[in-house]
């Protein structure tokens, strides 16, 4: 799942100069350190995740926010979704 997510991040955000191995699972995706994705990337990633996994977010709580921090936390979040894996 983590490898799949890394490929999705690279293709959705057109990060052609990166390979999945360049992204550590516990690396911060956004902000100054780590991968350093910006807010536009965040939006695009959200759109791509929803398309691929049918992710649903009712309200944005701090907990939900934290789930999108790294590839590892995101993988856990997707696995915990009621109908993960068979999205549209």
């Amino acid at each position: 799942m983590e490898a799949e997510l890394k490929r999705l991040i690279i293709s959705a955000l057109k990060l052609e100069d990166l390979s999945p191995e360049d992204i550590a699972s516990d690396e911060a995706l956004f902000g100054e350190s780590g991968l350093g994705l910006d807010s536009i990337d965040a939006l695009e990633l959200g759109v791509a995740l929803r398309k691929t996994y049918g992710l649903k977010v009712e309200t944005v709580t701090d907990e939900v926010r934290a789930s999108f921090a790294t590839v590892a936390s995101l993988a856990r979040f997707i696995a915990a979704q009621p109908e993960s894996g068979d999205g549209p």
Partner: protein
Amino acid sequence: MTFNPCAVIPSHDHWTALPGVVAAARGQGLAVFIIDDGSGEPAAAAIASLHRPAAGVTVVRLPDNRGKGGAVCEGFRLAAEAGFTHVVQIDADGQHDLDALPELLAQARARPKALVSGEPVYDATMPWGRRIGRWITHLWVFVETLSFSITDSMCGLRVYPLAAVTELLAGEGVGAGMDFDTDIMVRLFWRKVEPVMVPVRVTYPPGNSSNFHMVRDNWKITRMHTRLVLTMLVRRLTGATAPPRHWAGLAERGALWGLRFVVAAHRLLGRRGCMAVMAPIVLYFYLTGAEQRRASQRFLGRALGRQPGRLDGLRHFMDFAGRALDAFAAWSGTLPPVAVTCDTPDAFARIAADRRGALLVVSHLGNVELSRALMAPALRQRLTLLAHTRHAENYGRLLREFRPEAAARVIQVTDIGPATAITLQEAIERGEWLSIAGDRVPVLSKDRVVPVPFLGKSAEFSEGPWLLAGLLGCPVHLLFCRRCDEGGWAVSLEPFAERVELPRGRRVEAIAELAARYARRLEAECRRDPFQWYNFFDFWREGA
């Protein structure tokens, strides 16, 4: 709740009237604490001679002058130690007609949790310096409490519930000088201690001059009010903050009374009368809001094409106050829906019939909120507001309490992440309208701005709305609501872009094009009535 009061009389160099004051208190069966606040001779000796513990009169001397507040607080401490539940504060100069004491005590006994305060009925002997101070204070206390239940906050004759006072003093500082009386009253009010007013005749005996210092004390009072208002605003805007946890709820309740007051005044006095009532408050914000004032001047200079004068600036601020007033009036149902006409009926009907979700780009021009208030409920239900600050959420909560159907969904987009993107997309798929300001600080991040010409000079506009529209793949409409010269409002809902394409590599140019087109449209609307631009913000970065 038991009621066991004592009297506290702070005195700094007042002694001639003191025996009479003490006798009046004793006449009501009150134990008396006289706090000699560092008096010089001969006052100190005269005050000390009144010390007769066996007869219920205790004199405590503070070697240094602490100011009235410091002295009264010392009295609170002594009274609490001695097991009293209430403190009757009495000024030592004999200015209050102590025939009012029985009535004050009766009120306090009936409402032991309230602060029972004298409400002075003055005779002609009041000095001018104090009159000015009182007038300023009266206005201020209204702003601070958004309530008229405190009709006088400076009277030194009152009955305090000691438990609430002790709790307050443990958590917050209170002004030590002549600002004490008002400061403690407002802060108690914030802590839900209800004020009860009892009329008291006041005279200023000529031979016994007050310690009130015209310049110094009026300055202190002004400073205290500035502090109180700032405290209030900061607490309000940041929501619940320490120390008093229940403040947030109370602040909003206070504001709710404020809203009700404004609405009642609007019904009673009409818009003009209400504006007159608000004028001093607006004047204050005009005089103290240097940054907003400069922003207003810069904007007016560009939009009017001439150097704006002071009156233009004041008019701009008054219009701003009027905008809030109109919005409240609309929410309160005082304005009939017919007050709003539509500039673009065909487009409006087409957009309303379109079931797709869309991005509505709004601006700080005119009164979009009013258009939301008077919108058909079915349309209003489609709206979700995208806001930058917590302030919008607080305001939304406030409105909800005031009028439940006013509740708007608000999504905070200051710190936008993938999770927010998903909720926004879901909203669009449900056919909602996401409203977002196109003329304010960048939504997504501070660097997400694009320079475009606006009113003759390059200004930074947010990329946010256009990026969002591109990513969400939804149509963009513009919504304006302008107050007409002849009264009433005109709404304009117009299609702006059917679809926003942001091809990689051309993204920057595509966004700049959209922002420039929006700025042109906004500019045309601004020139129509510059005074309806309520965006007190340094658009052209000329302040830097």
